[in-house]
């Protein structure tokens, strides 16, 4: 291609060489606005290299205090706390998944044709999703008192809305033809749901619930800090008295537990989805 030919093509189809001027200007403007916002935020929060450096040296001190990790004298308390955290996550996730199933069905566009009902349910999910687990935990601690019950309720309440939305979306992505097959055989609404939709979405739903169980095990540690039961309380107490070596020990145990749950649920998920493929 000679320069003259290239120029001729550019004259003939300018938009194939560069986006129109308007779009380029808009893009530049957007990029500038983002950069300005970023810079403003950095200045506002006083991000300076010196402060970051200081923070790092503080972190290094903590790390030094963590070595070697030690279980301390209260072995039993730590194990009980960990078991409590895992149990909270399990209970909370199971409750959330069970409640999210019917809500997800009600929120699915291809199943519920009453737009107003579906719309209000979807907005309700959105509203609940705006409130974090920790806030629910603080509220439940006031309502039902200190302890794991508050934690379980917080996990369940916060996850119902998210799982219901994911479930609704999974249901909307089902293949129509399979459902049509059930309808053509004389199946009503309930039969179509039970035999056309559920077999397609159940593995996906279980897989998602397993992901939530794993992430909730981690979250359950935080909930303890605000008094909602679990290992978090133990961690908070030890940080208060600067027993960093014991904190490190608990953290190591949690990493092991989360890794074990992750490995287990990955195997389960593979079996579920593999089973669906056959």
């Amino acid at each position, binding site marked *: *291609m000679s*320069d003259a*030919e*290239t120029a*001729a*093509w*550019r004259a003939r*189809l300018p*938009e*194939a*060489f560069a986006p129109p001027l308007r779009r380029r200007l808009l893009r530049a403007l957007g990029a500038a606005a983002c950069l300005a916002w970023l810079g403003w935020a950095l200045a506002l929060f006083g991000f300076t290299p010196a402060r970051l450096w200081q923070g790092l040296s503080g972190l290094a001190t903590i790390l030094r205090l963590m070595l070697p990790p030690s279980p301390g004298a209260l072995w039993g308390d730590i194990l009980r706390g960990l078991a409590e955290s895992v149990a909270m996550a399990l209970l909370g996730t199971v409750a959330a998944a069970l409640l999210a199933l019917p809500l997800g069905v009600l929120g699915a566009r291809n199943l519920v044709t009453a737009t107003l009902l579906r719309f209000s349910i979807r907005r309700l999910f959105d509203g609940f999703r705006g409130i974090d687990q920790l806030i629910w935990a603080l509220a439940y601690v006031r309502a039902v008192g200190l302890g794991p019950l508050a934690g379980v309720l917080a996990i369940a309440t916060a996850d119902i809305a998210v799982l219901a939305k994911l479930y609704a979306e999974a249901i909307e992505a089902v293949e129509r033809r399979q459902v049509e097959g059930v309808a053509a055989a004389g199946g009503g609404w309930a039969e179509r749901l039970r035999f056309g939709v559920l077999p397609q979405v159940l593995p996906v739903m279980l897989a998602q619930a397993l992901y939530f169980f794993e992430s909730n095990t981690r979250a359950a540690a935080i909930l303890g800090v605000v008094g909602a039961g679990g290992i978090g309380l133990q961690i908070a107490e030890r940080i208060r008295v600067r027993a960093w070596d014991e904190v490190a020990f608990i953290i190591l145990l949690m990493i092991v537990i989360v890794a074990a749950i992750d490995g287990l649920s990955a195997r389960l998920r593979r079996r579920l989805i593999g089973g669906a493929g056959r």
Partner: protein
Amino acid sequence: MLELQGLTRRFGATVAVDAVSLAVPAGQMLGIIGRSGAGKSTLLRLLNRLVEPSAGRILCDGTDVTALRGRALRRWRRNCAMVFQQFNLVQRLDVLTNALLGRLAYQHGLGRARLLLTGGFPAEERARALAMLERFDLLGLALQRAETLSGGQQQRVALCRALLQAPRLILADEPIASLDPANARLVMQALRQANRAEGLTVLVNLHHLETARAYCDRIVAMQAGRIVFDGPPEALDAARLQAVYGLPEADLAAESEAAAARPAMA
């Protein structure tokens, strides 16, 4: 001159390509026929090194293709353009960019870094691609996403991408099995023209014996990974074909139709 020496590929216990030896002179148009699962696709993919051989060698003008690595391998792939049954376009990129992918292996150094960072090809390459798209009557679609195109249009874009590689060899794997008759003719004629006018060697896998007879200089028939016929189209008469496949030509054609209808199996 392209030379295959005892080329073999096993997938687990099955032997997809079984000790195939073949010499293809430069500028030949070679049709490869055979039933589904005969090893035609694997053979072409071996040539492009999309699949690694279990044994055997590929020589091109004396160079051992099977030993190429890194940059030399990329240059070999640039030199032997591939056309697929399912087109293998990047659906979310526009037609022009899909065609420009054929120019990827020509970008080096700073220009390559800039391309990878911004996704924008140089003006000269764009002009070259536009000229190719015009040749295939696709200019009006240049800025549309590939996914909005019909199958025939997509295969024409794929041909543009292949020809923009300025290859010495074209490997076409069932290029017309998913197309309507008009587009099939167009694609086969484009391949034939690239072979005749530009002297490219073309290896094309085909379901239909008729198509192979109409367009190819030479026909190779494969069965269970082995070559069971190799010769000019006129030598492959009905009796010969039945001996090769164990069933008459009409049945073979019917079977091919069925195979084409479920491309995922091919």
